Structure formats: structure tokens, C-alpha cells
């Protein structure tokens, strides 16, 4: 007790002093404000001195150059040369940091995305269980002030191992904001989702993409090999931007873009025009057109060549209170031999809302989607779908989330509805 008594007395004394200082919070706030002003005055004075004297003066000279402004007690207690030395040291450190931050080429950045999933449905013949989603590596490297490379590789789990896919490989030259030209393999700029979220599940609100642009699907040509021009259009408050590309179009397997070469002498082209109005920050409206000639590998009595027109539109409110996404696409196929024409339509509407509670980590969402392919369709196999998704996203950290979904879908009117529970944890690293 004797040993602790001085400690207690000391604590009482210092606490009393602290209490006296801090009892009226306004006084303390005022003191901090005065100190801040003092610090700012001193910073300003140092800056003035620096501009007057490019070469740092000797410490004693610097001390004598400081005008007669009142000095803090701490500064008086320190040796006269200490602040100047400290400042010189800090300045050298800052200059070193500045040198480190200056651009160097090439400057490779790698980011990864991954997800682990669990699913269980009441569809006959399916089994529940875990599966490893795509492991996605994204590469971005500035090669000069105006030339940049972007790449995306995915590792996909298969029953017998893993497959590696080059999802995107793009080299881009930026002339200015109005014209950027690139060559390579892209996500086709049709609609919104396909170029907004790519393969990183963490980037999108939901577990999966809408069926009309699902990975490996064929309704929209998800990938495109060729060149792309893009940029802003001087349009004042309308905030217009464009993409225009020419490439191989669909390959013999129509879900693939003909990476190793086109299967006909016709190039596909795509044009995408969208607006981000200045007055409505968060809104995006857009239309897209895609034209191609499809050559199927199997020749039938009606031939194997088709003209394809895709027209699409989207409206997106890209904020989170609420988040709203809606896309529509019509895929028109015309048989070159018989002139028989079919139209396939698909759309989805998705809404989400970031809840204000629990540090804004929760985001419930709902999506309705519908795909229709007519019975007379000649290029696609049937892709009919009517489905709803109700889910909840929980952001575990800034870079990882957990999602749970209930899905109710039906492919054909004659088939029963399928109910399913889906879970996913996804992340970026």
C-alpha cells in the first residue's frame, strides 16, 4: 500500500489537472482551435521562408529569420537548431516520397477476385454442394503516359481439373478524353452489365449475372476480338460517351468470339452510346447496336449462314440508395438463304438498397429476369427463362462480402418451377 500511495496521489493530481482542463469541452475545443491556428501560421511562415530562400539556410540563421511572433513553450525549450534540422529532414523525406510517386513505366498492378459458392435446389437430378467459383486475375500496366495494357485471366474449376481462359487482353492508346483506341479481346460493350462487372463476383451486387449475359451463354456475344474506339462526346450536361468496335464476331461455337481467327470474311461491328447526365449524378442511359454474320459449323437444308442484329438499351441508377439496373436486348436472326427471320428478347430489372444500419454493410436486392426464344429460332437452342431472385449482400469488409439468395426459376411453361438457395462469399485481393 505504501508503494502504491504515491502512484495514487500522482494519478489524483494529474487527473485533477486534466479534469480542470477538460471539464468545459468548449474551452478545450477553443484551445485546440487556437493551437491549430498557431500551427497553420507557422506552416505558412515556413513556406514563405522556403520561397524566399531556395537554399536552406544554416539552422542558426533560420532561427534568427523567424519574426517576433510568440513561440510555443516547447519550441523555446528545444535547442535553437532542432526545428530547422527537423524541417530539413522532413523536407528530404517528402522529396524522396515525391520521387517514389512519380510515374515509372511499365507499372504493373495485379488484382485478384475469387469466390466460393454453395447451392441447393429442388430440381430433379441435381445435387447440392460447394463449388469453387472463378479465380480471376486482373492486370493493368501503364506502358507510357498514353499507352496502357489491361489483361484478365480466369481459372475455372472443371470435373477433371482447371481451365485457364484469357478473358480480356487489351492494349490501349489514349489520344485524349475524346478518342482512345485499343486492340485485343474485350467484353463486348453491349448494354451495361457486361462491361461494368466483368468476372469479379465481388463487384456485382448479386451472386450471378443475369441469364442473358451469363458466362458461357450465347444470347449476347459476351466477348469480342478486334479493335475498339471509345471516348467522351462534347455534349455539355448530357454527358455522352461512345464505344465503337470492329472484330471477328461470333465463332463457330457461337458463345465464343473466334480468338484464333474469324470463321468467315465478314467482320462484326458494335456501337454503344450512353449518357451520364451532369444534373443526375448516378444515372446512366444507353443504347447499343451489334451487327454480325454467323456461320454455323453444320450445314442444313436451310443453310448455315445468318445475319444477326442485336439492339439493346439500358437504364441504371448506379448509387446504392437505391441501386437500379434494367437492360433489354433483342437479337434478330435472318437466314441468308431463306430470309426467315426470328426475334429473341431478354430483359432484367434489378433493384437493391443499402440499409443505413449496421454500418451500411447490408444490401437486400431483388431481380426479375425474362428470356424468350421463339420455337422457330434457327441459331439458338431454347433459352426461355422466367425467374426471380431475392437476396441479401453483407459486406464483411471493404474487400469481401457474403451473399445469400433464394431463386425461383422456370425454363419452359411445361416444366415445373425450380426453387433454390444459393450462398457465396466473394472477395478481391
Amino acid at each position, binding site marked *: 500500500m505504501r508503494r502504491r500511495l504515491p502512484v495514487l496521489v500522482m494519478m489524483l493530481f494529474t487527473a485533477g489537472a486534466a479534469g480542470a482542463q477538460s471539464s468545459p469541452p468548449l474551452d478545450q475545443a477553443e484551445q485546440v482551435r487556437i493551437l491549430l491556428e498557431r500551427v497553420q501560421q507557422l506552416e505558412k511562415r515556413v513556406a514563405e521562408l522556403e*520561397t524566399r530562400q531556395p537554399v536552406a539556410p544554416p539552422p542558426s540563421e533560420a532561427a534568427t529569420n523567424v519574426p517576433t511572433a510568440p513561440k510555443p513553450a516547447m519550441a523555446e525549450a528545444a535547442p535553437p537548431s532542432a526545428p530547422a534540422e527537423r524541417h530539413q529532414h522532413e523536407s528530404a523525406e517528402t522529396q524522396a516520397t515525391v520521387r517514389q510517386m512519380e510515374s515509372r513505366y511499365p507499372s504493373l498492378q495485379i488484382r485478384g477476385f475469387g469466390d466460393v459458392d454453395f447451392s441447393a435446389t429442388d430440381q430433379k437430378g441435381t445435387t447440392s454442394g460447394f463449388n469453387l467459383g472463378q479465380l480471376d486475375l486482373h492486370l493493368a500496366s501503364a506502358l507510357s503516359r498514353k499507352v496502357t495494357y489491361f489483361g484478365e485471366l480466369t481459372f475455372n474449376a472443371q470435373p477433371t481439373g482447371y481451365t485457364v481462359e484469357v478473358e480480356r487482353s487489351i492494349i490501349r492508346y489514349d489520344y485524349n478524353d475524346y478518342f482512345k483506341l485499343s486492340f485485343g479481346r474485350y467484353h463486348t460493350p453491349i448494354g451495361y452489365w457486361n462491361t461494368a462487372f466483368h468476372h469479379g463476383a465481388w463487384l456485382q451486387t448479386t451472386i450471378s449475372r443475369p441469364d442473358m449475359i451469363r458466362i458461357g451463354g450465347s444470347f449476347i456475344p459476351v466477348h469480342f476480338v478486334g479493335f475498339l474506339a471509345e471516348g467522351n462526346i462534347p455534349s455539355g450536361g448530357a454527358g455522352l460517351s461512345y464505344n465503337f468496335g470492329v472484330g471477328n464476331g461470333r465463332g463457330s461455337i457461337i458463345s465464343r468470339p473466334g480468338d484464333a481467327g474469324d470463321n468467315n470474311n465478314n467482320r462484326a461491328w458494335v456501337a454503344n452510346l450512353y449518357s451520364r447526365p451532369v444534373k443526375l449524378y448516378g444515372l446512366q442511359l444507353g443504347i447499343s447496336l451489334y451487327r454480325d454474320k454467323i456461320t454455323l459449323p453444320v450445314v442444313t437444308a436451310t443453310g448455315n449462314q445468318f445475319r444477326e442484329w442485336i439492339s439493346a438499351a439500358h437504364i441504371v441508377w448506379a448509387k446504392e440508395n437505391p441501386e437500379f439496373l434494367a437492360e433489354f436486348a433483342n437479337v434478330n436472326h435472318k437466314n441468308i438463304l431463306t430470309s426467315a427471320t426470328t426475334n429473341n428478347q431478354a430483359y432484367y430489372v434489378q433493384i437493391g438498397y443499402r440499409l443505413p444500419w449496421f454500418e451500411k454493410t447490408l444490401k437486400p436486392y431483388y431481380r426479375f429476369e425474362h428470356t424468350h426464344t421463339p420455337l422457330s429460332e434457327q441459331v439458338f437452342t431454347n433459352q426461355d427463362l422466367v425467374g426471380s431472385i431475392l437476396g441479401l449482400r453483407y459486406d464483411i469488409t471493404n474487400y469481401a462480402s457474403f451473399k445469400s439468395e433464394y431463386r425461383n426459376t422456370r425454363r419452359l411453361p411445361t416444366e415445373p418451377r425450380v426453387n433454390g438457395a444459393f450462398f457465396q462469399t466473394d472477395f478481391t485481393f
Partner: protein
Amino acid sequence: MNATSKRVVTFLWTVLWASLALHSPSIAQTSRGADIAVVVNADTPVAELSLSEVRKVLLGERQYWNSKLPVVLLIRAPAARERDVVLRVIYQMSESQFKQYWVAKIFRAEAASPPRIVYSNDMQYELLTAMPGAIAFVDSRNMRPGVKVLRVDGHMPGDKDYPLR
């Protein structure tokens, strides 16, 4: 005083100190109110921007001042008041939304790198003067010569209708 009393006294003092520490207003809380100036490298060919143009620059939708001069975005590290104002007024995003926005932006191949993070005013001014095309956001009370302050929506920092505060 027995052992139990001593523990009680120690506990009470700990609580008192903790509450004092927690209720002390931080520097960030007390320094509110000053305007945040939009500052560029002196050679940047721009003198005025609307708030929506500032937003376009910060969102990475405008990446060039002209065809020869790319924009170099400088943003203070988290907890700096300048960053709070930029996120609240211009981005209208939380800290995590801001981070996610730039991850997505680079992933979409719309930008090669995120804004450069600066940790002090000194560093900010060094970069502003050293890097052509640099733009930063500075507490208007800490202005220094050698850089250009932009009008935003026709107003300078200190004007009544200046939007960044």
C-alpha cells in the same frame, strides 16, 4: 484500504481516464468550417471548373487537361478533412464505396491507376509543383504560393457560395 477497495479505485480511475480520452474532441472534429480549395499545378491550362466538372475529374471520367497533359489526381489519406469533404460533396460516397469505386474503375480498364494518396500538406505541395497536370484539394487556410487555385462554380474559397466546405 483493503485489496478490494484498491481494485475498485483503480477500476474507477481507469474508467475516468478512458472516458476523458474518448470525449476529447479530435483535431478533425474541431477544425471544421474552412473551405477546401481546388489547386492545380501552375502550368495547368485551366482556371475555373464547375462542380460537375470537378466531379468528372475525380471520377476519372475526364483524364486529360488537353491531349498532351494527363490529369494526376492527388487525394489526402483517410482521416484528413480535405478527403472527408471531397468524398462527401463531390463523390457522395463513403470511404468503402470510394475504395470499391476505384477497384471497379481499374478493373473495367477505364483507368490505369487510382488517385495518388498524399499524407501531408508538404507532400501535397511538393507533388503539385513537381507533377504537371496534378490536381489536389487543400484547406484554404494552408495555401502556399507556386500553385493555381481554381474557381469552382465561379467562386473562390472564402466566397459565400463556395461549394466545397
